[in-house]
């Protein structure tokens, strides 16, 4: 469960690295079954990232979205995926396979690097001759240096974000809990519509919301109900348990 995977932050640079790592640790192949199995650990990792800049976590959240789709499909047999979603899943698997290839060969390169170097011939000694260039003036030198300084990346620069506002899993859970209390039943479609469906960034919100629902199901706060295959997923408060939050 959540505690099963403890990692120091930021142990993983990106979502593909983390996923391949999780899958390889279990000695699994890259497929729907293995991806569904590592979803919880993957989400646990994102949750542990709480305070990191959204620029870093955004890639993880986008990938988590696809993982949740895979997991939902494995949990709810009736769960229907759109063509887009199927596409996202296929793409994720292909990316993981490609990444795994480069990662594996990278290990081999690491082993041979600087092991047996092919040396070039050093420069023979040459008596220098002073030959300046007519275009060489102090003002040109100042100009060129100014240009070079402009191109040095500033390490501390706050990264531009693709997502306007940082939104954490916890925030989303709180928000969802409140809404459920207000209106006993809430359709997932309605929920997603409210959050917005236009841009990719906004879609991430929906997916984080979806993750949150799964989380609530696990905690027993809400019940998820789907009448038939093509129906909305209904979210209801579970009255048999007092919410602990």
């Amino acid at each position, binding site marked *: 469960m959540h505690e099963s995977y403890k990692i120091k932050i930021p142990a993983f640079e990106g979502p593909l690295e983390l996923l391949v790592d999780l899958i390889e640790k279990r000695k699994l192949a890259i497929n729907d079954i293995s991806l569904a199995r590592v979803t919880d650990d993957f989400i646990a990792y994102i949750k542990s990232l709480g305070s990191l800049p959204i620029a870093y976590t955004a890639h993880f959240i986008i990938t988590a979205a*696809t993982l949740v789709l895979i997991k939902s499909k494995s949990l709810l047999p009736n769960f229907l995926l759109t063509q887009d979603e199927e596409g996202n899943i296929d793409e994720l698997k292909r*990316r993981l*396979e490609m990444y795994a290839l480069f990662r594996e060969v*990278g290990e081999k390169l690491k082993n*041979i690097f600087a092991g047996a*170097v092919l*040396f070039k011939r050093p420069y023979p000694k040459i008596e220098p001759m002073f030959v300046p260039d007519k275009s060489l003036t102090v003002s040109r030198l100042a100009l060129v240096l100014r240009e070079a300084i402009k191109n040095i990346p500033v390490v501390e620069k706050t990264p531009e974000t693709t997502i306007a506002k940082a939104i954490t899993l916890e925030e989303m859970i709180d928000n969802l809990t409140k809404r459920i209390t207000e209106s006993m039943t809430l359709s997932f479609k309605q929920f997603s519509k409210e959050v917005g469906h236009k841009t990719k960034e906004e879609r991430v919100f929906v997916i984080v919301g979806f993750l949150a629902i799964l989380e609530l199901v696990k905690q027993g706060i809400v019940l998820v109900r789907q009448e038939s295959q093509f129906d909305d997923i209904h979210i209801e408060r579970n009255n048999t348990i007092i919410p602990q939050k």
Partner: protein
Amino acid sequence: MILSLPQQIEALLFYKTDAMTESALAKLLGTDARHIEEALGELEESLKGRGIILIRAGGEVMLGTRKEMSLLIEKIGREELEGELSKASVETLSVILYRASVTKSEIDYIRGVNSGFMLRALQIRGLIEKKPNPNDGRGYIYTPTIELYQYLGISKKEELPDYQELILSLNALTEKKAESPDYPRGNESAIE
């Protein structure tokens, strides 16, 4: 006596010591790309069984000592070798090496992270080069340098570990992609 093209190339590379592009060779020797290509093949062949070899990487050529000599030369050499590479660096290098010429967005897509700082660090170390993209006037591609080949002890890309195998697997994955045309290219731009 007039020297043959392979002889002339060998002498020029020996004198220059740095890598030369095949086009610079053609210009200097007053011939064309096809003749240079042919002559380089002959030179490569004639260097078999010698103490030096021809290293070729992405349109550039250079002479170097054979890998069997590396220990002895390290002993007498003055150069300090920077040995260690991080996991993230080798990952980035492997994409650039096996893809041979690749854009930043492709590297980012394959690694699932923004590689900007990593690419700069590798350029500073002289292991990769940034060049204008011939297919896109404003874009850039990244290519391995001959120096990277030297450090790996390989004289051409075919000598990379698992080269054929990896290229086949990559092609198979790209074909798979082509078979499912309606998948959204959405996530790709998420990296930008």
